[in-house]
């Protein structure tokens, strides 16, 4: 299923009428092999933000009153994250896309971390950065790249790659 821009969307069901994991609001991540870096929960949507600063307290004095000590240095804010899952028409396409995205060169220095994982026909992606502007820019660029990658595959791969195998009828 694709939107008007040709970007693969997230269908509600696969060909067998079963819900595809990773629907918005359902933290999930398909099992399968992963790209560079570690995998994590596949929550849809952005999360994270600056942690609250904490003020250290001295041990209580003779009068039992604990006085505030020197201000603690604010801990490093957690990076912003954006996760999404792209369904492909076949596991082969997903595998090719994962292989391409995992190996392609990253801009240096790395400001936005990318985590990739593929399972069956689903490619899950998580982008994380402390810089929201960079995160947005990278996401947009990533979508352009992914769209072009998919269009190229669809144009060049033989049709049989896109056939979804049907389960045998059982008795």
């Amino acid at each position, binding site marked *: 299923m694709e939107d008007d821009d040709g970007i693969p969307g997230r269908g509600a069901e696969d060909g067998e009428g079963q819900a595809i994991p990773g629907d918005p609001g359902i933290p999930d991540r398909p099992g399968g092999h992963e790209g560079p870096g570690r995998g994590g929960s596949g929550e849809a949507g952005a999360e994270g933000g600056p942690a609250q600063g904490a003020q250290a307290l001295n041990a209580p004095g003779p009068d039992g009153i604990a006085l505030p000590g020197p201000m603690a240095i604010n801990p490093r804010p957690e990076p912003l994250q954006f996760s999404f899952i792209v369904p492909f028409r076949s596991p082969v396409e997903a595998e090719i896309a994962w292989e391409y995205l995992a190996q392609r060169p990253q*801009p240096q220095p790395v400001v936005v971390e990318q985590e990739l994982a593929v399972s069956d026909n689903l490619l899950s992606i998580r982008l994380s950065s402390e810089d929201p502007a960079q995160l947005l820019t990278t996401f947009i660029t990533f979508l*352009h*790249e992914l769209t*072009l990658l998919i*269009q190229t595959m669809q*144009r060049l*791969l033989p049709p049989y790659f896109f056939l979804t195998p049907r389960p045998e009828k059982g008795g």
Partner: protein
Amino acid sequence: MPTVLGFEGSANKIGVGVVRDGAVLANPRRTYVTPPGTGFLPGDTARHHRAVVLDLLQEALTEAGLTSQDIDCIAYTKGPGMGAPLVSVAVVARTVAQLWNKPLLGVNHCIGHIEMGRLITGATSPTVLYVSGGNTQVIAYSEHRYRIFGETIDIAVGNCLDRFARVLKISNDPSPGYNIEQMAKRGKKLVDLPYTVKGMDVSFSGILSFIEDVAQRMLATGECTPEDLCFSLQETVFAMLVEITERAMAHCGSQEALIVGGVGCNMRLQEMMETMCQERGARLFATDERFCIDNGAMIAQAGWEMFRAGHRTPLSESGVTQRYRTDEVEVTWRD
């Protein structure tokens, strides 16, 4: 007998070419043209390239009468150029290489021009004047590098011409430089403009600032016509280029000059260079618009040379770079 497929898209032209053993089998191209008075922006240009690149690929294969199995290597423009357009083309090249399981080669755009110029003209070891919208360099080969003997210290000569075209709202179709050339042929008056040569280098930002500043006033007072300004600008900037090329030829003792790059299509520039070469007893080489202007076959040709010399670009190193100097590449395919 390797066959190389080349992708070019560093500026507003996107091309896909096929080259086999010195023969150009296909070379389709598209140009992103903007309205008069405007230039092309990276995002819009990239969008244009994304929309047409796969059609061009199909067109190239059909024109060459080849399939994926006939291709031995995929070459693409690694740089220099505009970031977003470069990336758009690189994505397709990488994907094609991966799907077809072919080696990938990142090519320097400037070297693509040089190698195509050498192939088409047969020049053996020329002093190269590389002039385009994005680059202006005087280059000569020495010890496995294309050495830059002189260059612009600010903007390229083609950029100067293109931006002047915007001032006069000259059409960008087919290119602003071409339209300036046609208008210059009707120019009668030579307007005195800043001439800036600094040793082996040139500068065009000053002359552009000057002519942008005085153009409207001079036209309004009837002091000159737009054709006069086009003529004057060409005469001045081209004379600067001829001077630094001649200086490099004298330094190298070169008897050949080769013009490459989109501005190299300009017949007046070729005429002025020919005069200089004749005075020196040297020979001038130039190509036509098929190969002067950015095209995919030039990338394929440079890729062909590199492929035969054993160069390969792993996928992990197949990025693009907006600043990629001509002399960064080790030219292992020449003695």
